[in-house]
């Protein structure tokens, strides 16, 4: 049985006679040169802002640490690699109703960390942080549980919109120009 890749490669050669074969990253050739195509120019490169505007430095470190616990680095980037903390800062600036819950939540989290381990959240080991957060991720009715749920949502929103989250982690490679849409070629999926 030929593989999907083989079938596509064959298709690419026979149907479009490209000078070069499909690049490994793409399923079929990109077609930026088709008549009538006027595509907007390449994305501008903007220096990523390096400083938060809402969170204080200590709070920001906590945001980084907490988001990294929710989506940690594995063989793919984690929240910190993806710059999630800055995106969360931006989200709070854009939606001021998040400011108080975030600020109070981080303070409560530190209070809990101090009660349990005698140190702020960021000073705890990974294992301690996980131990502290596990009940919060289950008891969603407590104030801290609610904060955790809110913060997790914000982390998800931020991380999976980044190139690291969407492309590197999930492998999404859409929104490109294809000459043909191949569709599914798994016979087992077909009726």
């Amino acid at each position, binding site marked *: 049985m030929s593989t999907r890749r083989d079938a596509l490669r064959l298709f690419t050669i026979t149907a479009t006679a490209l000078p070069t074969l499909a690049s490994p990253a*793409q*399923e079929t050739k990109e*077609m930026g040169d*088709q*008549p*009538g*195509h*006027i*595509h*907007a120019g390449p*994305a*501008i490169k*903007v220096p*990523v*802002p390096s400083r938060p505007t809402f969170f204080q430095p200590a709070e920001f470190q906590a945001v980084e640490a907490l988001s990294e*616990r*929710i*989506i*940690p680095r*594995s063989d793919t980037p984690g929240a910190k690699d993806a710059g999630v903390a800055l*995106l969360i800062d*931006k989200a709070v600036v854009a939606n001021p109703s998040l400011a108080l819950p975030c600020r109070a939540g981080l303070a409560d989290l530190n209070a809990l960390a101090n009660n349990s381990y005698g140190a702020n959240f960021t000073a705890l080991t990974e294992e301690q942080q*996980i131990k502290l*957060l596990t009940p919060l*991720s289950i008891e969603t009715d407590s104030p801290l549980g609610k904060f955790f749920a809110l913060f*997790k*949502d914000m982390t*998800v*929103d931020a991380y*999976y*919109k*980044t*190139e690291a*989250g*969407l492309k590197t*982690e*999930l*492998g*999404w*490679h*859409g*929104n*490109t*120009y*294809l*000459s*043909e*849409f*191949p*569709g*599914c070629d*798994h016979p087992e*999926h*077909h*009726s």
Partner: protein
Amino acid sequence: MQIQTSPQVHDVLIIGSGAAGGMAAWNLTRQGVNVTLLDAGRKFRRSEFWTHVKPWEWQQRLDAGQKPPEIVLSTTEQPYITPLEQPFLLTRVWGRGGKTNIWGRVSLRYSDLDFAGPERDGWEIPWPIRYKDIAPYYDQVDQLIGVCGGDDDQDSLPGSRYFLPPPPLRCGEHIIKKAAHSIGINIVPIRRAVLTRDYNGHTKCHYCGACGSGCDVGAFFNSSDYLLEPALKTKRLNIIDNAVVARILVDDRGLANGVQYFDRYTKEERRIFGKRVVVAASCVDSSRILLNSSSPRHPNGIGNSSDVIGRYLAEQIRFTLRGFAPELMGGKVYNDDGIGGAHMYMPRFNHRDGRKRDYLRGFGCQFWYTGAQTDLSYAKSIPGFGLEFKKAVK
């Protein structure tokens, strides 16, 4: 303030440039009629669309002070309110082509099952026409704008001899289709006004899936490229940009003879006269204009002796279900963009098995967002955090 009035009397004035206004302009100009069309915005430039801006580039561009073209009318510019507990999602596009710039492109024909419904169950006013009366027009529209679809012809969803080839199905769609067939429910290629091959001088789809940001090559029907541009070529069409129509003017006999409008930006009031006025400004804006057009002859607004204009407004009635295909979990990630949204359709089936339902009539199903998507909101409902969570999301 001085009202600017031109003494010229135009043959036909059309209010609105969307599907209906564009079609009226296209038809009239090719039959030799001079048309003046009033549009509440201006032409959108394809080269300015953010069609190919990746999700992570949006924020970067916004940070750099760039803005995507404002296709959907901002509620800051034109706010609206609804009664308490009666939300209404009003999507307005003030600009050439109107909502056809960003529409869902689903182009299903009504069947006799639909036309005969009111008579059969006694609800609503019966239709005065049947499928055979409207079929020739469906054929004309299919040929003009290009609609992809299959070769099937269902009792609840008529086919067409003029469909362009359907796009192949994604993995998830095949799985749903197989499941539906196993319980005797038919699934057919959806009919959508997306070009799966070059057609009538328009460029075919390049499967980027970002149609909602406006198509940068015009590969799906939009009134601006498909109707107004050809109409402009006849030299019989004149378009007035940024003309927000307030009301229809009438003569002593109560017949429409002109339009009062305001410049969207300078707010100058203007009047323009015509022998015929076509109101094609979308459901809600057309209602607004007709209700605004009260006069001694039309105390309740034009065409509103029934008092139903502006009442009983309904959004598209739809219910959303989410499903999950375990077969696809952990597999290779494909580019599932396709023509942006559903490639297949489940036509109404509940009339076929003879079973009596406790509701009237029936429904069809579209299947959107199958396969790899950029919307990860489902991840929020996955419990836990950390490596396990990250793995589960993937």
